[in-house]
């Protein structure tokens, strides 16, 4: 198992981390570290960028260049970094609020541009860090500190949003499915273009406590029960799909990648200039 390699990728001296007992964010971070180890990524050529939120804190557990940016703007910092250092593998650790709440606009435009970044979305259906407020991902009727009688809104489906906006690799899984997290993160990193790996995860402290699922083990199993692998999903009727969420590799497409197109343009313009100077 790749576990023995983890110390190469993680700042183990920072453990125990700040997340609550049983929090799914630690499990996703473990899967991300395993994916890095299995790909033998060079820590000197890898960077992790987090936003603000419990999820954003994952960035500085990695023993490599990391940025803890502003809420919703991690993609902006990652875009700048990737453009000036195209040789880096740039990975984003985003919360659901961070990615599609305050950062929703940056998110859809990153999908459209197809920059070679890998965004891991720690989707716990709530604003964890600030005390359990309703998020654009909170399912209908679920409680949060700002929807104490149940959420009246309809949530974003992050994976579908990413596909519609033009992301070229989109997968969804849960914090229960450890090997799928590792597999999809690895494929997302290897994919040339904007890759989104949405991980449905558990926040026992807020989402769980407010929705009568305080026990992290029970929350993990609920996630498993509510999700259906793509192969099975295709066989289900509309009624059978209600209340369920499809997981798997949902989308993969080849399309010109922005950073490459950008440098190709620079090279082309420079060669034209050289020719021009000769005249």
């Amino acid at each position: 198992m790749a576990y023995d390699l983890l110390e190469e990728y993680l700042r183990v001296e920072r453990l125990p981390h700040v997340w609550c007992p049983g929090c799914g964010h630690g499990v996703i971070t473990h899967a991300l570290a395993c994916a890095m180890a299995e790909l033998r990524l060079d820590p000197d050529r890898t960077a992790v960028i987090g936003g603000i939120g419990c999820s954003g804190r994952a960035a500085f557990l990695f023993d490599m260049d990391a940025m803890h940016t502003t809420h919703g703007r991690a993609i902006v910092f990652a875009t700048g970094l990737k453009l000036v250092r195209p040789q880096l593998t740039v990975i984003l650790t985003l919360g659901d609020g961070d990615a599609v709440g305050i950062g929703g606009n940056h998110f859809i435009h990153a999908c459209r541009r197809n920059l070679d970044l890998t965004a891991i979305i720690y989707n716990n259906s709530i604003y964890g860090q600030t005390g359990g407020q309703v998020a654009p991902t909170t399912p209908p009727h679920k409680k949060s500190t700002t929807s104490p009688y149940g959420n009246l809104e309809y949530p974003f489906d992050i994976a579908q949003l990413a596909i519609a906006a033009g992301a070229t690799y989109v997968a969804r899984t849960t914090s229960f499915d450890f090997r799928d997290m590792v597999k999809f993160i690895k494929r997302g990193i290897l994919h040339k273009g904007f890759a989104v790996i949405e991980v449905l995860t558990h926040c026992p402290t807020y989402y769980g406590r407010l929705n009568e699922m305080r026990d992290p083990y029970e929350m993990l199993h609920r996630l498993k029960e509510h999700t259906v692998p793509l192969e099975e999903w295709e066989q289900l009727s509309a009624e059978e799909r209600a209340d369920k969420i499809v997981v798997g590799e949902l989308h993969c497409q080849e399309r010109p990648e922005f950073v490459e197109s950008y440098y190709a343009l620079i090279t082309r313009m420079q060669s034209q200039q050289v020719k021009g100077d000769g005249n």
Partner: protein
Amino acid sequence: MKRYEQNGFFLEIEPRRCKGCGVCVQSCPMNVLILNDAGKVEAKEIMRCVFCGICEQRCPDFAISVHKSV
């Protein structure tokens, strides 16, 4: 750090990292693990362990792991 060795494998527990959430205890198919009085995980029945790695995959705190002895 505690090490429980058996049949060419070992289970490693780092009590300093364990937050006592109990997820590994509930997830273990062989009922190997318990939480002790200090709220930390312990491999009480290591004889039953099949080194499946489920506890390692469920732990959010990098506190329990399975390794091959070399």
